[in-house]
């Protein structure tokens, strides 16, 4: 089991979700965050107060996948989230030691076993 954590542009979220869906990855958790990287920093002015905006809106995705699906998942993200401009984001892969499905209490592979059908088998 691995956790794929991806930081992407907000406007790419729909595309990434669609790509994940097409890759049969259905479970994902989405988080509005702000990032700092190589992006040019905006300057804003409020009634004479000038500020440099060091953070840019981003979306962070957390996706738990079984080991065999890591590459599929990463590739789906890499191709669907790319614009080629600075600020496209990063993908990190982490080891997971245990997974539980709260609804049933199933652990690890049981938690990943699809309930029904084939499309679920890749998600936890």
């Amino acid at each position, binding site marked *: 089991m691995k956790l794929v954590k991806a930081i992407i542009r907000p406007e790419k979220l729909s595309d990434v979700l669609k790509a994940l869906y097409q890759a049969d990855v259905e479970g994902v958790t989405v988080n509005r965050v702000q990032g700092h990287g190589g992006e040019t920093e905006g300057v804003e002015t409020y009634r004479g107060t000038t*500020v440099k*905006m060091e953070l840019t809106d981003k979306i962070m995705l957390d996706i738990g996948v079984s080991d065999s699906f890591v590459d599929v998942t990463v590739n789906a993200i890499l191709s669907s989230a790319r614009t080629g401009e600075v600020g496209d984001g990063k993908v990190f892969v982490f080891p997971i030691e245990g997974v539980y499905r709260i609804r049933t209490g199933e652990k690890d592979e049981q938690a990943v076993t699809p309930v029904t059908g084939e499309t679920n088998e890749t998600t936890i």
Partner: protein
Amino acid sequence: MIKTGKLAGWAARLVLPGLVLLLAPELVEAQDAIDSGDTAWMLTSTALVLLMTAGLAFFYGGLVPSKNVLNTMMMSFVAFGVAGVLWAVAGYSLAFGGDGAFVGDLSMMFLSGVGMEASGSIPHILFMGFQGTFAIITAALISGALVGRMKFGAYIAFIAIWGLVVYAPVVHWVWSGGWLGGMGALDFAGGTVVHVNAGAAALAAAIVLGPRQDYGVRAMLPHNVPFVLLGAGLLWFGWFGFNGGSALAADGLGATGAVTTMFAPGATVVVWAFLDHFTTGEMTAVGLATAIVVGLVAITPASGFVTPMGAIAIGALAAFPSYYFIKWRTRSSLDDSLDVFGAHGIGGAVGAVLTGVFAAEAVGGTAGLLEGNPGQVVTQVIAIIGVLVYSVIATVVILKVIGAISGGLRPAADLELRGMDVIAHGEEGYATGDGAVLILEDD
């Protein structure tokens, strides 16, 4: 002293065919004396209509994604400055000066001769101010078709020119002795002058600008529906001055204007709720707010010509065409983003036609179709078409010229996607300050 030319146009507004003899002596008297009650109501009405433009900012601002909220709201608020000042400079004169058939003159430029003397039963200066609030909101109405994708400078240039070249002449046509008023077209408070006019301009402008980069691709949802409801509430409140004030007096006609304005949108809300219910199974808040505006628009031309029950009929009937047009529009490639044409263009036209249907002689002095005067409907249709055609053509020409001069009407595509607030105004609607670093030295 009020100039004869203006009075003639004005008379055309108040003194409708069949009433001339009846009202004429009163008007002659009216020139001589300010009535404090009428003035009190017109002072209030002027404030109310001014507030409508702030209400519109919230109605429109709530409907866009948060990255464009300030840009959208500023499109309304900046009209206070641009359209307001230009009204004093030349707009009022072009609308109400002289007695040409197509446009006023420049005799009252810089408000020359517009002072505290009586004009009717209120100070002339107040009549000018009241009309100025109409000029402001009409310009702002158009912005609903342009949100999220127009250079702000180009927008300002557009409403400045449009106010002088389109709005002022159309006012003259209908309310100041121009060709449509002369024909007997009925428009109590601006169904044609304001709503068909702004709706037509919006339609044309949406086509000239083209759709937003992500229109039809991504869902662009209202970021703050309570703001939409706030806007609808403030608009309704202000519309009492818009329609009730268009009687220019605190009398039975003013009361009719206000009371029809109170009941018509209620009927639209009820019908819209049914349509929503049958279409999606649920009555929506955005739909409710939209229904209020459509009902207000539809009753505008009729408000001084029909009974409250006539108003309820107009409000109810007006729901249908706007509802189905908007439903179709959102699936089309026409990015009239906030449905200015669907709500104001169609709502105003339907209201204007139904004015010709439901006009009651006992209310406003003119009979409509139901009282055996089918000709009135024809006159109404001519007025609608006249205004619509002129507004569309002039809008296209103005925008093309501005676009040519300013190197395009729209910002670069990637900037547009980041949101107009940051790129055109250097601000965010809802800043948290996280990651904001003060720059203290001068820029």
